[in-house]
């Protein structure tokens, strides 16, 4: 009897990985003969292998598992792919990874729909007027070479998302070879301001947060369960936190203007006037009454009454929270997207970090991270400021050639950037893309990328849960489309155009990766084992764990320059704050074309397949708006129209539209669903870091007179249980958690 376990064990035995892929490919080819699909066959190079004589690691009808890394977001979860007959079927978390410990979020699981997406680009496309013409890769490479001829290094720009590992090395080498320093690392949604504040207060950009060690977590809009930094990892910490430290169940308090998934799970959720998170933090410091010196001086004006007036939080709640924080230590205070999205975002984050210092959490629940021993592989983290810089450069006509590595700034840049127009000013735009998204459509040359399930790579996550880990990304199956290429292969080909000699030893990225890893075998923990064994073990594990040095956090409390502005006056013309919501399903919209994601109800509103304008019922009553009304949301920059969903978890002066929908390209599952709030986002920037202040947009709401049925999972009863005991709740004083298993 062959069971899946024994096959799983096979993954631990050494064998030739590429041979494996070939066999899998033939599995696919056999399927093609029976009319089920097509895979690439290298004409004249491959031999027919009878399926019954397949290699011993392929057993028809039994699944094989391979480890790789999830690339849906940059948290760096390790995955285990289930493969049968050469097709990847399902992704699970890899239990060996300290980050996700065998778990995987919905977004990660939907990666197979990225891989199998019917709307992927399948051929290199060269712009011919409004149409793309399929060309060969040789021609595409030659074209790039040709267009680069005579272009100065500073006239070349490259835009990418977060990048790390060998791909980053190769990318850097290519930019070097071009003589360009214009590598813009851009992520539309990124905690860049918090990083800066962390650096200021703790001495590191991304410390290790220990929610599991905290007895109280006070989060200012940090959606650590849904979208923030490393949600799957934090969710596991959260589970431990709820189970309790020393039997005491952790308490979560969330202060934000618009409820996030994390806020929905809080014991106390505080609706905060948008932009006053820092004031609340100072108010709590004041209420704690333990600070001295500079800090006491800073917070002395932030008495309860004032803070309550400014933030909308009731004084009694401030007292209760201060009392709880005093009583239960250690605690952890987090600053998230909601706090940083303002002109004074840095001040907000600083005030919040100061609270951590005052509470003495630094060193207890905020730990120093380990540093990556190979700095060239450490992640470059994206910032919105990078896009601003690039856009300014493009607008000034500084760049003649633009490379875009799978980012979609046309979709995620505020409309006032006029990014689409500015991009046109670059003479030659190359997009490395999976789909014809809004940005790829503007490119002159579109080069189709392998999906993460076809490609090789290494990734170093920014947030390291335990030791340093280098995550291996390896193909889980043979290429689905013959003419897509891995980003690494493309980079290698391109860099060979410039530095043929240096890279001639490498046929492909696989060879490059293998030799790069084996070169550092000793440093990677493989001393003593032979090359093949080490390489195969590495692939089999999917992770290389290294011990890294962890420094100490700075305990210096420096409140100089910390000054919070008073809450903004109501603007008569634009009375509402627009909160562009980052939701756990959609993030920045790069996965909107994955149908599981589209149909996965938004956890808070349960809406699917569409955008909505979230509005507090009280405000809606004032405006005479009911659920399903189509309203026009107008900012200084522009306007969008969408259905209203009445939602109590939002500050009444605010409305929220989720980011990620409203594509006008990107295939059948994304195009035409919902609206894009970036279209009405004002270009306002955080003053200290230059990041886009996403929460600073003011809007007004007008009814259009149309009404639709909101497509959502929730029924007409809404969230009410109508007296039935369905989702029961009990307060801590009525339950004895110690008896639990």
């Amino acid at each position, binding site marked *: 009897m062959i*069971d*899946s376990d024994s096959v799983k064990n096979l993954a631990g035995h050494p064998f030739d990985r590429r041979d494996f892929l070939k066999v899998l490919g033939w599995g696919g080819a056999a399927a093609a003969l029976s009319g089920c*699909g097509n895979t690439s066959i290298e004409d004249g190079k491959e031999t027919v292998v009878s399926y019954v004589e397949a290699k011993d690691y392929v057993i028809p009808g039994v699944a094989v598992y391979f480890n790789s890394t999830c690339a849906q977001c940059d948290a760096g979860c390790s995955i285990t792919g289930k493969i*049968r*007959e050469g*097709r*990847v079927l399902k992704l699970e*978390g890899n239990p060996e990874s300290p980050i996700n410990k065998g*778990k*995987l979020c*919905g977004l990660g*699981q939907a990666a*197979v*729909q990225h891989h*199998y997406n019917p709307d992927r680009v399948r051929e290199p496309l060269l712009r011919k007027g409004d149409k793309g013409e399929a060309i060969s890769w040789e021609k595409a490479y030659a074209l790039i070479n040709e267009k680069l001829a005579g272009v100065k290094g500073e006239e070349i720009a490259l835009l990418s998302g977060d990048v790390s590992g060998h791909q980053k090395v190769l990318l850097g080498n290519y930019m070097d070879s071009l003589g360009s320093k214009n590598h813009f690392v851009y992520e539309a949604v990124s905690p860049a301001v918090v990083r800066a504040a962390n650096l200021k207060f703790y001495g590191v950009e991304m410390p290790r947060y220990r929610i599991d060690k905290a007895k109280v977590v006070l989060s200012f809009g940090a959606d650590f*369960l*849904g979208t923030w930094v490393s*949600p799957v990892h934090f*969710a596991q910490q959260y*589970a431990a936190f*709820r189970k309790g430290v020393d039997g005491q169940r952790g*308490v979560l308090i969330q202060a934000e203007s618009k*409820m996030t998934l994390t*806020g*929905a*799970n809080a*014991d*106390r*959720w505080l609706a905060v006037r948008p932009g006053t998170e820092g004031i609340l933090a100072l108010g709590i410091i004041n209420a704690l009454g333990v600070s001295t010196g500079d800090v006491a001086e800073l917070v002395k004006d932030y008495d309860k009454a004032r803070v309550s007036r400014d933030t909308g939080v009731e004084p009694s709640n401030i007292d209760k929270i201060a009392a*709880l924080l005093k009583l239960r230590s250690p605690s952890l205070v987090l600053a998230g997207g909601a706090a940083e999205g303002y002109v004074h975002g840095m001040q907000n984050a600083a005030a919040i970090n100061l609270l951590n210092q005052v509470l003495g959490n630094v060193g207890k629940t905020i730990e120093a991270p380990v540093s990556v021993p190979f700095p060239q592989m450490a992640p470059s983290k994206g910032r919105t400021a990078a896009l601003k810089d690039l856009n300014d450069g493009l607008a000034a006509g500084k760049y003649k050639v633009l490379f875009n590595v799978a980012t979609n700034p046309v979709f995620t840049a505020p409309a006032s950037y006029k990014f689409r127009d500015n991009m046109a000013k670059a003479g030659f735009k190359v997009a490395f893309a999976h789909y014809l998204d809004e940005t790829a459509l503007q490119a002159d040359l579109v080069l189709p990328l392998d999906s993460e399930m076809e490609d090789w790579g290494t990734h170093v996550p920014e947030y390291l849960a335990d030791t340093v880990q280098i995550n291996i990304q390896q193909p889980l199956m043979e290429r689905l489309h013959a003419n897509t290429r891995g980003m690494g292969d493309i980079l290698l080909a391109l860099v060979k155009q410039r530095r043929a000699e240096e890279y001639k030893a490498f046929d492909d990225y696989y060879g490059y990766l293998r030799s790069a890893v084996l070169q550092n075998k000793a440093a990677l923990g493989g001393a003593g084992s032979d090359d093949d064994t080490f390489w195969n073990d590495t692939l089999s594990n999917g992770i290389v764990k290294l011990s890294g040095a962890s420094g100490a956090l700075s305990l210096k409390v420096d409140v100089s320059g910390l000054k919070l502005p008073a809450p903004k006056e109501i603007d008569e013309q634009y009375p509402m704050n627009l909160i562009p919501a980052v939701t756990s*399903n959609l993030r920045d919209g790069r996965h909107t074309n994955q149908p599981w*994601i589209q*149909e996965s*109800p938004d*956890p808070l509103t349960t809406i*699917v*397949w569409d955008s909505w304008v979230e509005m507090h019922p009280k405000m809606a009553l004032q405006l005479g708006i009911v659920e399903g009304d189509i309203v026009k949301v107008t900012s200084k920059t522009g306007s969008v129209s969408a259905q209203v969903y009445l939602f*109590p978890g939002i500050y*009444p002066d605010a409305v929220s539209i989720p980011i990620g929908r409203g594509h006008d390209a990107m295939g*059948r599952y994304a195009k035409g669903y919902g609206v894009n709030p970036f279209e009405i986002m004002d270009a306002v920037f955080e003053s200290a870091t230059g990041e886009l202040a996403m929460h600073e947009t003011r809007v007004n709401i007008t009814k259009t007179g149309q009404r639709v*049925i909101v*497509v959502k*999972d*929730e029924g007409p009863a*809404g*969230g*009410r249980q109508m007296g039935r*005991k*369905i*989702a*029961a*709740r*009990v*307060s*801590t004083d*009525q339950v004895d*958690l110690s*008896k*639990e*298993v």
Partner: protein
Amino acid sequence: MSVTNLLDNWAAVRHFHPIDDKPHDPYKWAMAIDLDACIGCNACAVACYAENNLPVVGREKFKHGQVMHWMRIERYWEEDGRDFPDQGFQFLPMMCQQCEAAPCETVCPVGATNHTQDGLNSQIYNRCIGSRYCSANCPFKVRYFNWYDYPTTENVWPAEMNYQLNPDVTVRGKGVMEKCTFCVQRLRAAEVTAKGEGRIVREGEVQTACQQSCPTGAISFGNLVDPESRVHKQWQAQQVDLDKDAQEKNQKEGGTDLRGYRILEELRSYPSVMYLERVRESAV
């Protein structure tokens, strides 16, 4: 057909379950879901789509209530006249409760849904004629009917997307009822493996797809009759008895300080899923 067989086995065919009799030997698959751990992230629901070949019906059909999510996350908020949900929401993963005395089973005219030896409420797609009586009689409304022929519906599984389909699970055509199976394909594989080795399935050897993906480990699943299983221990610690329609702990004066409960238990369907109440800190 033989009348003698009927008469010879009269006692056997007159057994009542779950009241008089415990036929779950050696397995009774059951679940415990900790609502305090559930964060409502939907990972389980997506895992279910991936594992069980659930069709994505698209916006129009979703609007008409024809969605096929075997596992759905419900989100509750009790207003009590408050302006804000300042005590948070409550999320509830809801799927087939695999009732011991399932109301759906008795009413199916063709016997397409039955109770299995290992305590599941099975659905036989081939046998189903689509009378939908089972769904009509389900108190939890966790049965999903194939209103259209999804495999041939445009953009449900277009070319290449269909490569993802799990070969261990049937793709259902129009007109049949379906629902959560507790990932029966995984259970059977584990049971058969264990049988081949002359043992029963060990705790942790088999996971449902939702359990496997759950980032907070809110879902535990296992063999309720195995004293070593976590599910067994949880049910026991919470004093929830599978075969009771009202738990003794609830009759104690002053209530219970345990948080295990089953939804709509009073309907006497004896669900196999125990929920643990969401806890809320009283200090804030």
